């Protein structure tokens, strides 16, 4: 059964009561909320994701609930809960979807140490993965959204899950998180993209989520072998340009952008080394998405 098989009133009721359990492979997440519009947002963003039988093991029990405190309630605030514990500062209920996404990211980053977790966008073409680790503000998610709507399969815009045993990288085809000016840019670049409502005044500015394209959701269980590590940076009016960088530099950037590299110790060092060994490492500067996508297409075709 998929989420879209439940109609809106039933979904709202289930989320308010016991919650719904989504298979966000490789994890299962039970989501509970008493905020009706969050149920609607989840229905839009995750409509093709499977619901898990109630008896199955759940990795993360999360909830976004209206604040019980009278002042917070008056201000229309909501809280994120994980395993029965309130986490993070309450936010306006209008930001509930962003709060849920950030909360799930946190759950994974803080607990899923069976993977080396890399803060990166991951896309795939021809079985080969493009890994783009980058700090906020580098244009990573914008580029990721553009590529995901131009023939690249989205694995993740935020979290690359590297299996140190197999060397394969997994994604979850969850929504892409766009901020501020990136929102109208992608709306114009990919009119077919499905957006959530924009959520203004978050700590990151205005945020909107973009549903993963259908091909990405259909193939979300298939990992890919990393082939390119690309460090993107957006610079106004810069022509699109790919420049080779040393693997040692790419290694250090990947380690820095990993949430749990330190926890893995020597195994993480060696696993990341194997990944970098198998990748071409590049810096990518761009300003215009059409130009960026064309350059990626040409580059990856010449590499195949």
């Amino acid at each position, binding site marked *: 059964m998929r989420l879209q098989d439940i109609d809106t009133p039933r979904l709202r009721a289930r989320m308010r009561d016991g919650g719904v359990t989504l298979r966000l492979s490789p994890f299962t997440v039970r989501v509970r909320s008493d905020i009706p519009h969050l149920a609607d947002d989840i229905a839009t963003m995750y409509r093709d994701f499977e619901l898990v039988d109630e008896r199955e093991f759940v990795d993360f029990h999360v909830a976004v609930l209206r604040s019980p405190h009278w002042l917070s309630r008056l201000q229309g605030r909501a809280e994120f809960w994980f395993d029965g514990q309130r986490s993070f500062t309450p936010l306006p209920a209008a930001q509930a979807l962003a709060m849920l996404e950030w909360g799930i990211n946190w759950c994974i980053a803080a607990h899923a140490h069976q993977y080396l977790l890399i803060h990166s966008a991951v896309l795939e073409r021809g079985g080969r993965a493009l890994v783009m680790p980058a700090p906020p503000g580098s244009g990573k998610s914008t580029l990721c959204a553009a590529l995901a709507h131009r023939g690249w399969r989205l694995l993740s815009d935020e979290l690359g899950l590297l299996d140190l045993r197999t060397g394969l990288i997994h994604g979850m085809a969850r929504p892409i998180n766009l901020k501020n000016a990136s929102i109208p840019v992608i709306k114009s670049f990919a009119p077919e993209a499905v957006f959530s409502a924009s959520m203004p005044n978050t700590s990151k500015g205005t945020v909107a989520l973009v549903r993963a394209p259908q091909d990405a959701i259909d193939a979300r269980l298939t990992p890919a072998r990393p082939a390119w590590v690309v460090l993107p940076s957006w610079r106004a009016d810069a022509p699109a340009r790919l420049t080779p960088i*040393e*693997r*040692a*530099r790419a*290694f*250090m950037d990947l*380690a820095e952008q990993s949430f749990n*590299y*330190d926890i893995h*110790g*020597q195994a993480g*060092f*060696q696993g990341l*080394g194997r990944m*970098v*060994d198998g990748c071409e490492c590049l810096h990518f500067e761009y300003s215009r998405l059409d130009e960026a996508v064309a350059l990626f297409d040409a580059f990856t075709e010449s590499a195949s």
Partner: protein
Amino acid sequence: MPVPVWHCRQPIQDVLLTWEGEQHAVFFDPVSGDTHLIAALGAQLAEWLAVAPMDRDQLLHRLTHDVDWDELPSPDALAELLNSHLHRLADIHLLAESPATTPVEALAEEPSA
């Protein structure tokens, strides 16, 4: 007069990543858990010292003859370069300097039956 020798403190194949033609390498310190970006020349020193301990003169000789320099530095500059690399690599626990020992002292340290 015996002189101190340098040696590699780690099983290098497990803790050092180098790539052909690159100016940098990566070293993982298994004691602290820290990862360091180091110069390729430092990695080369570590690789030599992993095979056998050497003193400064032996290292200078190898630097002079076994490195493909674009322009060989002057002896003073090379000595200074070696010093800076050795100290940096000692700071991050990749290399260590062993105190000087004479053959007699070395024999005295061997366990007796």
